[in-house]
């Protein structure tokens, strides 16, 4: 039987940060990392740019082979965790290999949701989560002229823009009335939608797809409102969901993802989970939520690893804060924290129609709840800290509202010194 002290399933942001943190305080214990991908680690966030050709697959490797060698980490590529025996502390890989572990981190991320649309299973389509997906889509886009993107979430929007950059005529079909629902308020969403429209992307909003069928070359989608769209290729981007088949037979509790506590521990002894696979505390409400964003995967990976390596500097997870820095056709939409006001929030906003810029601040008890902006300079990291640290803005409220950027910088700089 293969033995390892730390076993990490997943070699992306959460898993890699965990490796880094473990090695900061434990230089010698064995670490084994398993990834489903055949290639060295990369970020799923880069994939739309691989599709457009802006990023080359071999130039976006997050850690190269030398890194793993220098850190004395055994990286197993092209294999998969398929079963866990928690009592025996061992896992089985797709290859049949078995590994005994002392501590196991599940950082296997999420996978695309395939919606139950009639005809979809008979129609060739793409998804975008792995490097192989991106290479397939890029190859196909190279000899396609038109594309349909199902879903105006982050992946769909990034995918559509990059397909457009690759020269395709693109239509986005979205069930909701606004793009990026849940990420931005409707005001920001409408600026984004206008930019997409004016860059030649057809935005088919507010109507779901009821049927998909293959054509001789490409496909046709029929919308709720009866409209039909045809294209050479179809990208399905209707959300993500972790694949958790490997948990069968374990005591690990799941809801939408693996339920973890504030140190990223699952219900099973010696097993942690972090990143897109995990469902952890929310910052605002007393519930566990799926975050699905990169900075959070890094934070959770760090916390899990510090707990696993018994790092005394560990601070429990303060809860997920949604953060999106979204660039589209040279513009930026940024949202940190709560983006839609409720009864308890005080909302202050400033809109500049000429520049198509806006800024919105949500406060509660003079603490920052959320801030969002379009085409305004914004230090997202500083705003995130102001929210997380529940910094009392009472003494600087006017200054903060007038100049959130400068005031935020001064506040963080003063806490740093």
């Amino acid at each position: 039987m293969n033995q390892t002290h730390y076993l990490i399933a997943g070699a992306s942001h959460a898993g890699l940060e965990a490796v880094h943190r473990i090695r900061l305080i434990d230089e010698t214990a064995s670490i084994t990392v398993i990834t489903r991908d055949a290639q060295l680690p990369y970020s799923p966030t880069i994939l739309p740019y691989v599709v457009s050709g802006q990023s080359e697959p071999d130039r976006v490797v997050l850690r190269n082979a030398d890194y793993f060698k220098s850190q004395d980490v055994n990286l197993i590529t092209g294999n998969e965790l398929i079963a866990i025996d928690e009592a025996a502390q061992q896992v089985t890989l797709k290859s049949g290999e078995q590994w005994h572990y002392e501590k196991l981190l599940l950082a296997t991320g999420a996978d695309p949701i395939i919606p139950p649309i009639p005809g979809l299973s008979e129609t060739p389509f793409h998804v975008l989560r792995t490097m192989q997906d991106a290479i397939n889509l890029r190859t196909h886009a190279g000899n396609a002229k038109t594309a349909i993107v199902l879903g105006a979430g982050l992946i769909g929007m990034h995918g559509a823009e990059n397909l457009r950059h690759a020269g395709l005529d693109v239509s986005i079909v979205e069930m909701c009335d606004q793009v990026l629902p849940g990420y931005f308020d409707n005001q920001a969403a409408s600026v984004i939608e206008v930019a997409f429209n004016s860059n030649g992307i057809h935005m088919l909003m507010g109507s779901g797809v009821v049927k998909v069928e293959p054509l001789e070359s490409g496909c046709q989608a029929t919308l709720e409102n009866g409209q039909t769209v045809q294209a050479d290729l179809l990208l399905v981007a209707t959300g993500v969901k972790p694949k958790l088949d490997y948990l069968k037979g374990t005591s690990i509790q799941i809801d939408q993802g693996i339920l973890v506590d504030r140190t990223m521990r699952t219900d099973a002894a010696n097993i942690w989970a972090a990143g897109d696979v995990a469902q952890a505390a929310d910052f605002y409400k007393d519930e566990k939520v799926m975050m699905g964003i990169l900075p959070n995967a890094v934070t959770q990976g760090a916390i899990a690893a510090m707990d696993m390596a018994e790092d005394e500097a560990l601070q429990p997870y303060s809860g997920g804060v949604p953060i999106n820095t979204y660039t589209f056709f040279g513009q930026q939409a940024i949202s940190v924290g709560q983006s839609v006001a409720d009864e308890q929030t005080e909302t202050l906003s400033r809109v500049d129609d000429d520049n198509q810029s806006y800024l919105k601040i949500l406060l509660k008890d003079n603490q920052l709840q959320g801030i969002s902006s379009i085409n305004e300079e914004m230090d997202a990291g500083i705003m995130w800290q102001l929210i997380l640290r529940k910094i009392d803005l009472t003494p600087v409220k006017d200054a903060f509202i007038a100049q959130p950027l400068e005031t935020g910088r001064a506040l963080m700089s003063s806490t740093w010194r």
Partner: protein
Amino acid sequence: MTAYNTIAFDPSRCESCNNCDACITACAQIKSGTDDPLHSRIKIVAGINGNQPELALCRQCGDPECTKSCPSTSLTKNEQTGIIDWNKSLCIDCLLCTVGCTYGGITYNMTLKHVAKCDMCDGDPACVKACPTGALTYLTSANIFNEQHEREDLFVPGLSACQGCNSEMIMRHSLRKVGPDTVLATPPGCIPGMGSVGFNGTTGTKVPVFHPLLTNTASMLAGLKKQYNRMGRKVTAMALAGDGGAGDVGFQSLSGAAERNEQILFIVVDNEGYMNTGMQASGSTSYGSWTTTTPVGTEMKGKPTNQKNLAMIMMNHNCEYVATASTAFVEDYYEKLDKALEASERGFAYLHIYSPCPTGWRFPSSQTIEVCRKGVETNFAPLWEYERGGELQFTHSIDNPLPVEAYLNLSGKYRHVNEQQLAHIQQEVNDRVKTLKRFAGLN
């Protein structure tokens, strides 16, 4: 492990420029060829509610968060320089790095349509050169760590110095650099008191060390050195002495050895008094200082007489080399130590290190270096060097000093000082600088 150079920021000096923005303009110029502050990677922001100004600038973090959030590998820590390099050709403008950074160190530039961050101008930062008040400084003392940390610390761990002791730092730094071919004398004082000579047949030092009397340190060392010379062995004869042991009780032997130009490296750690025996005043104790023998009461208000300036006295012995130093300016000290070591091959080399004492002077142990720094910056403890036959050279500018209160206010031993005494001390500092300037051929 490597240490790196860094840009340091002193908000108290920044305040005095009244938002001159010279650094911001200089950065914008070098990065864009325009004065547009938008292009500056350094931002000075007004302090909260009238407090001192604050700085938004990349800290070139040791464990950077920006790189971890970057999906494209555009951001990497350069192992050689420590700088977080940004590679434009890889960047996808996702702004995730700005989520990682909590200092406003990497920000989106609306005109360039890219993020931008400080790259320290390839080791010659424009902002530092432009700063008129010295609020920004480029610290290169990391080199000392890189060069010295491989060498052995020749004192044992666990010496029982007070928390925040400057003397312990001086001892360890000095002997590490001077090296193992040394015979060390530590006359009575804090240095042997903290265990460097050892107890009951053990030693606290990894080179031959002895404990002379206060009175005969320099003469014993002179004899030892002569014997080593006779044996044909190249050994540094080094003293680590306190100010009392050197300037008061041991002065006749010190003066004699200097006069004979004996090959000795004599280092004085000046904490202005006999601290390990209970904080009595010495000849080096400065005017107005509280000590147990110069108390503060209805009659006496601390030490009634001025300190004697031992370094200047030694210069007047026309030694091979004489210099003053401070641990707040450690690069300067290392250069002087090199010169002194070389000079001690030829004859007498004397180093006088100001060594504020947290216990005896009554300041928090975390403030030792700050007290050292303010001593120099107020001209209370000016840094200079002298080589036999030459002129005195200042190694830290004596122009535009801070008022002497900036130094006095840090230590409890001056807490009682009244206006009159303050004026006296300021006058004393001014006069001393004037005298030194004459030796430097300036006036």
